[in-house]
């Protein structure tokens, strides 16, 4: 019998290690996080920053296309410069990693927090609480994410830090599916005998929720969260495309993509750099998420219910 948790952590790592793709992905993700964290250092080594304009590096008469080959790649500008502004692309890319990863991660944290609270409360609460919360979750799921994001992002005063806001808005709108998963999983766990045993010990409901249920939710929640992160990166990019994402001059990959998509023909590297970065990140995170899922084995939970001898359907 295998189970994640205190004793399962070692098993988890052991199983994760056996998956080569997941390991490679983990290394890539670690590198990306490192790049994001070390952005100021990296740009200092390059000797550039993400916001300074270099009008002399672009051809003003031709719409501001970078002068020089490969979008103005040089010893000073490792990945060339941005059309129109001449800002350093390497600097913008590495600083963009901070925003893209940070927003996605923070949004995921918000989603998971709300989803777990609502899901657990619905599963453990009375019939009415469950009805109310489940219905509310349905409402949230049925609302078009983009539209609500557009409205919410417009309401909040612009003095509010934008990346935080974007993360909050994504988190506040898109927690429906995780709440549903948590509710279903909690209901399953609630039917398990060890929860009944904890009740017989005399513990109160909230303590049972914290001690007995939450650890059991860890596996499916981590699994789902691992898949949410790349999704949120794409959502941030899409919000930028619609013009309500992170605001300039803060660079984000989504915003770079948005600005760059029309430059596909005139300055391809301008589009390919953020697109490539996004692609690699989402790919690595998704593969890693799959690896985590395999290592945590979501079916462990359902297998818990299967005895070795007579099977009987629990009616309670």
């Amino acid at each position, binding site marked *: *019998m*295998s*189970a*994640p*948790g*205190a*004793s*399962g952590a070692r098993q988890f790592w052991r199983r994760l290690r056996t998956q080569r793709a997941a390991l490679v992905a983990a290394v890539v993700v670690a590198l990306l996080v490192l790049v994001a964290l070390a952005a100021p250092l990296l740009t200092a080594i390059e000797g550039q920053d993400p916001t300074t304009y270099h009008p002399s590096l672009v051809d003003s008469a031709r719409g501001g296309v970078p002068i020089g080959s490969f979008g103005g790649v040089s010893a000073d500008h490792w990945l060339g410069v941005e059309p129109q502004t001449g800002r350093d692309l390497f600097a913008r890319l590495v600083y963009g990693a901070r925003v893209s990863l940070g927003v996605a991660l923070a949004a995921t944290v918000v989603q998971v927090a709300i989803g777990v609270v609502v899901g657990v409360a619905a599963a453990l609460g009375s019939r009415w609480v469950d009805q109310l919360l489940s219905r509310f979750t349905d409402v949230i799921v049925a609302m078009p994410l983009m539209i609500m994001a557009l409205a919410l992002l417009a309401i909040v005063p612009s003095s509010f830090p934008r990346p935080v806001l974007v993360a909050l808005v994504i988190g506040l709108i898109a927690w429906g599916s995780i709440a549903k998963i948590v509710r279903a999983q909690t209901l399953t766990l609630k039917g*398990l*005998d*060890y929860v*009944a*045993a*904890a*009740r*017989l*010990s*005399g*513990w109160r409901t909230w303590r049972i929720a914290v*001690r*007995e249920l939450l*650890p*059991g939710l860890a596996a499916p929640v981590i699994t789902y969260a691992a898949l949410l992160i790349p999704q949120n990166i794409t959502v941030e990019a899409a919000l930028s495309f619609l013009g309500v994402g992170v605001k300039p001059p803060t660079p984000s990959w989504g915003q770079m993509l948005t600005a760059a998509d029309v430059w596909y023909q005139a300055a391809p590297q301008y589009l390919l750099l953020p697109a490539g970065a996004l692609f690699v990140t989402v790919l690595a995170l998704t593969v890693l998420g799959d690896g985590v899922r395999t290592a945590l084995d979501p079916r462990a939970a359902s297998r*818990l*219910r299967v*005895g*070795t*001898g*007579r*099977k*009987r359907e*629990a*009616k*309670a």
Partner: protein
Amino acid sequence: MSLVNVTDLTVEFGSLHAVDGLTFRLEQGAALALVGESGSGKSTVASALLGLHRGTGARVGGSIEVAGVDVQAASDDELRRLRGGKAAMVFQDPLSSLDPYYAIGDQIAEVYRVHTRASRRAARARAVEVLDRVGIPDAVRRSRSRPHEFSGGMRQRALIAMALACAPGLLIADEPTTALDVTVQAQILDLLHTLREETGMGLLLVTHDVGVAAESVDEVLVMRHGRAVEHGPVSAVLGSPAQPYTRELLGAVPRVDAPRGHAEVPEKPAEAVLEATGLRREFGRGKRAFTAVDDVSLTIRRGETLGIVGESGSGKTTLGRMLVGLLEPTAGEVRYDGHARVGVNPAVQMVFQDPVSSLNPRRSVGESIADPLRARGEADEGRIRGRVRELLERVGLEAAHYDRYPHEFSGGQRQRVGIARALAADPRVIVCDEPVSALDVTTQAQVVALLGELQRELGLALVFVAHDLAVVRQVSDRVAVMRRGRIVEEGPADEVYDNPQNPYTKQLLAAVPALDPRIAAQRRAARRELAVV
């Protein structure tokens, strides 16, 4: 030529030797039972006969010849022709062994067409024919049903029908009755017996239940750790076992016909600790509502054991959960110590059926056992650890097991942990819900013995809920028989077992397999009569 000829069979999964040098034969039309506890390798042998290990990474050594096919050397095509065509297998769990999405008739027809190239129509006709043959009433209509629309016994009949479809020479039945109620089990065993008489096919029966083997076969091969322990005619092996392990195994099997060893009748009834009056519990609402427990009244006295016996769906688990307060009754009340009670009460504890799901896999067993102590407000870490260690030792584990996790224990050990946790609350009543049904017979006997000891020592009242009539008799002072949510008969254990009044109780007792093949034959005849009546 023998139907099955296995020589020096070994099956290895990685470093695990599941089967280790097994040799046996089965003649045409004969019946052999592979008997053993879990982990003895008996099911692995059954799979190996059909070459099911091919391509799974298991290493199979030795030679296997089934119905003239050298399973080890056969091509994939030959193997496919063997499977289902010459030798067919019946599995343990009939619900999961059938595809839930297709009609049963179609599934049988599919198998038939694989082997005969018959037309769709002919295959369907054959499916109806075999379904009819295994006693499915209204086979034409029922062949269009999906597995979930069948009862457990019907599903097992359907699986047997699938096995019969291509008229194979050998039927391999892997625990065919383990998931079934005792009365249904008897019907299936009778069916297998009749089919064998009529078709003359050979039977290889894999079972953990010595009684089932005694009912069905001519020869027995007792296995342990992948090796043969004892092999011989059923009457010889079960009647006068030569090997110590066989003797141990037989000794552990509870007997439905033997009275409880230490039955000491108290002079005057002790005071009642738990009383249930008019308990009723409904599930669901509206059209789907059904009553799981209906007007049950019980009294449990200090120091006594009340056995509650019934088949699946009889409501005994629901009753047990209401007694401990995990479920609120729809009507009626449970009184503890003369006071009406709502919700749980640490003085009334429970031992659960499934030793896997009853312990939180993410917490050490010591922590789980300490729960009632902490919930009671005990904060002194030293006292808690001390008490838990004491309890661990009391249930036959080691004090050092405190920090271990459930997956490091065997099923029997986990059940001991469960008992220790119940004891930690200093209970006066423990409701045991099928506490041993998931355990092997030898372990089962040990756990039953432990419960008995604890009861005597601590003056506990026990409620022992089980489907196994023999086990219940072994432990109970009084017995209540449940059927469809009601208690149909209640009384002192020996009276109920030796002189049952209710026809259902009689039917149940008649269905229990006997260890003596001669008695088994008599019972079979008796069952036919009961069925006629």
